[in-house]
């Protein structure tokens, strides 16, 4: 194993431009939050029917990707694959950055963001949401500790392994909790399912790694550092397997739901309906987010180029976005079935499929969260010795058949 | 240069001392009913603690016969504005605002609670002869609990 040298990234003009662009997006999000808080949520597209909207899609996406981005480091520390070791510091930093971005969007969309301190000190422990708040805060602490023990001198490898394992277990609990936010809602046919927790876990593997590859694949050329083609191929192959796994869990979820007559109407709405959720599912989630990238990454996996892996990562991220939009918004668009034997109408949108058009403020808030994550990751690699000077293939044992 | 700074400081000091002839302190409007037996100093320090305790008594335990309910505070401390109607916290001269603005402590209550008393109390205040302290106390104890 060749010795890895970690060095801070020199802030070139290109990096300053990116920082300025991210700053602009963050400022736009900040202004949106002030506007929404002053006028009330009436200025957004969210209402009493679509209660959680685009900001929540962005937030959950970033949170799920955050826990998945830690995977690369976990594979090194917990599962002993030392060729991942040089990327472990960046993996930890990126997971912290993504979680910060996601949480930023989530708490700024609250009806009372000024009461955040209430949320962080008053807990109702029957609420999985309350547990999630504890898990999110603890994630910062555990992964922060993990990053510290990786970077500090004189720390024994067993300690790094122990902290890495703690971080791995914590992130599994966190993602299970995030999936359970939806899976434990008995009220709606689109949510009430035990498979939501493992589905979110496998989504985190897929989106997190896609994000990691994308950010790595753009940061390294930007900073003039070399990344070896075999390493990219291996990461790409792993990503392909995760994409197929997401398709599998999606298939199980929808097939099981469809089989039950009580949930059949909801499944028909998603799979064969005439709203935007049907093409969003088949084309956005399944085709763009699953089948095409899996084909790119797994067919002739020994010959995939860096460009192809990056392109597949982008597709998986877009498809993942469509997936979460379908889960979060689709689950609310379908009306509650309070009187299953009756057709219902009322002044409160009972019995009708609810529509949702996000406003510019919600887009600004969501994109600001992504920008915040990129900004934090960027600041981290410029200020600290996170990024290795080279990720050549020298560390990969050519006789080792596993990734 | 030093003389310029010194003369500027003297001018500032004179301005402050000139203005501090009582006018820096807020003008707190008088209440409609009798004074609190605990005294103003006690109420200034403890009013939030009392309000919060009685809030929980009412909201969680359903006890509406409390001594420090926000409804009664708002009623007794109503300030009449133009057209002889009570003014809300958004306008200058509201009882809570006059002190809270001075102390720069943001009031969270009136996003949800009405800062003006209810119509019955307003009608009482708008009678041709202003109500006596005991009439106010009776209304607060019996009607507004």
């Amino acid at each position, binding site marked *: 194993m060749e010795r890895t040298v970690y060095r801070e990234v020199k802030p070139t003009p290109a990096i300053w431009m990116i920082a300025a662009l991210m700053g602009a997006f963050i400022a736009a999000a900040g202004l949106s939050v002030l506007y929404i*808080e002053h*006028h*009330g*949520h*009436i200025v957004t597209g969210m209402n*009493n029917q679509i*209660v959680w909207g685009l900001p929540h899609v962005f937030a959950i996406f970033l949170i799920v990707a955050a826990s998945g981005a830690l995977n690369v480091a976990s594979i090194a520390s917990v599962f002993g694959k030392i060729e991942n070791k040089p990327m472990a510091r960046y993996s930890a930093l990126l997971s912290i950055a993504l979680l910060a971005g996601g949480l930023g969007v989530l708490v700024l969309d*609250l*009806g*009372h*963001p000024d*009461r*955040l301190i*209430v*949320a962080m000190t*008053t*807990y*109702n422990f*029957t*609420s*999985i*949401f*309350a547990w999630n*708040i504890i898990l999110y805060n603890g994630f910062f602490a555990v992964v922060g500790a993990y990053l510290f023990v990786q970077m500090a001198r004189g720390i024994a490898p067993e300690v790094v392994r122990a902290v890495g394992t703690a971080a791995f277990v914590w992130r599994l609990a966190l993602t299970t909790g995030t999936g359970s*936010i939806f899976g434990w*809602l008995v*009220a*709606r046919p689109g*949510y009430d399912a035990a498979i939501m927790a493992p589905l979110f876990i496998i989504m985190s593997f897929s989106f997190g790694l896609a994000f990691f590859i994308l950010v790595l694949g753009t940061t390294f050329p930007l900073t003039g550092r070399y990344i070896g083609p075999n390493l990219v191929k291996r990461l790409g192959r792993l990503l392909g397997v995760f994409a197929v796994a997401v398709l599998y869990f999606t298939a199980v979820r929808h097939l099981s739901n469809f089989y039950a007559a009580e949930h059949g109407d909801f499944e028909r709405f998603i799979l064969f309906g005439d709203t935007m959720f049907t093409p969003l599912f088949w084309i956005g989630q399944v085709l763009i987010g699953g089948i095409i990238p899996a084909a790119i990454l797994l067919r002739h996996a020994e010959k995939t180029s860096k460009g192809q892996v990056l392109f597949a990562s982008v597709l998986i991220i877009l498809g993942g976005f469509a997936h979460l939009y379908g889960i979060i918004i689709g689950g*609310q668009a379908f009306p*509650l079935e*309070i*009187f299953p*034997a*009756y*057709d*219902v*109408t*009322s*002044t*409160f*949108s*009972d019995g009708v499929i609810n529509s949702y058009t996000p406003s510019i403020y919600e887009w600004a808030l969501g994109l600001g969260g992504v920008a915040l994550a990129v900004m934090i990751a960027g600041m981290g690699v410029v200020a600290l010795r996170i990024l290795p000077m080279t990720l050549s293939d020298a560390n990969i044992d050519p006789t080792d058949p596993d990734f | 240069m030093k003389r310029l700074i010194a003369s500027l400081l003297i001018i500032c000091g004179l301005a402050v001392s000139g203005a501090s002839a009582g006018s820096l302190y807020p003008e707190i409007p008088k209440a409609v009913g009798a004074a609190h037996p605990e005294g103003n100093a006690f109420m200034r320090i403890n009013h939030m603690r009392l309000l919060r305790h009685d*809030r929980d008594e009412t*909201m*969680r*335990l*359903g*006890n*509406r*016969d409390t001594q420090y309910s926000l*409804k009664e505070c*708002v009623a007794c401390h109503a300030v009449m504005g133009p057209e002889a109607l009570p003014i809300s916290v958004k306008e200058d001269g509201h009882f809570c605002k006059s002190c809270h603005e001075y102390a720069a402590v943001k009031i969270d209550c009136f*996003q*949800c*609670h*009405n800062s003006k*008393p*209810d119509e019955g109390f307003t009608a009482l205040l708008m009678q041709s002869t202003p109500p006596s302290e005991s009439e106010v106390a009776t209304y607060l104890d019996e009607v*507004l609990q």
Partner: protein
Amino acid sequence: MKLPALNNEAVRPAELNRRDFFKSGAAVASVTLAPGVTLMAFGGEANANADAGKRWGMLIDVNKCATDCNACVKACSDENGWKMDGNPETDAQWIRKVDLTHKQTGREASLPMMCQHCEEPPCVDVCPTGASFKRADGIVLVDKHTCIGCRYCMMACPFKARSFVHEDVEDQKAHAPRGKGTVESCTLCVHRVDKGGIPACVESCSATGHGAMMFGDLNDPASDISIALKNYNSIGLRDDLRLNPGVRYSNL
């Protein structure tokens, strides 16, 4: 010299200490509000407050509810200060009329829907700060001081009973505070019930002559509502969820 007995009971025999009180069984029928303060759980008293011996509920007779009558909705909005401002998607609606047509038989019916005040409320389970809570007498409320406006309770409610306040509110009723950024729902007119009254919707329904709504103490076997529930068939909505709602519907 004989030393005086250390046993205090000889000096103050009339005072029961707490252990003797509980052993005597008097504690069985009483509710402790605070250390040393107890409330006997009788029924039907004004100022009974949030008594754990009671469970407030409603019975709605769907056959008596007229399709073109909106009295309950109007009464609730007048009583509690919420309005339909012309934006039905964002306007708060604590109670609404639901018009039903049976898919197979074509039977038409109408009924009012509001917070069902469940015994196992999903909204109370999921609230991260505990702002959504159930009182000892079964009324489910939102503590708007602690509500952070996350709207998770709105996702969890199977009856879509909760509304989010999307804009600034002015001129609130003194007994029904409500404000932007918090979640609200039917309070079962708790401000009236605490003083021995009945909810505004029930009162207005009686006033129209339809008499479709009845209110009372489900735990009191002698109350009108308990007798009606015992003698006539009724259901709770989404009974399959086992929430045991306090609002029941008959002839549905």
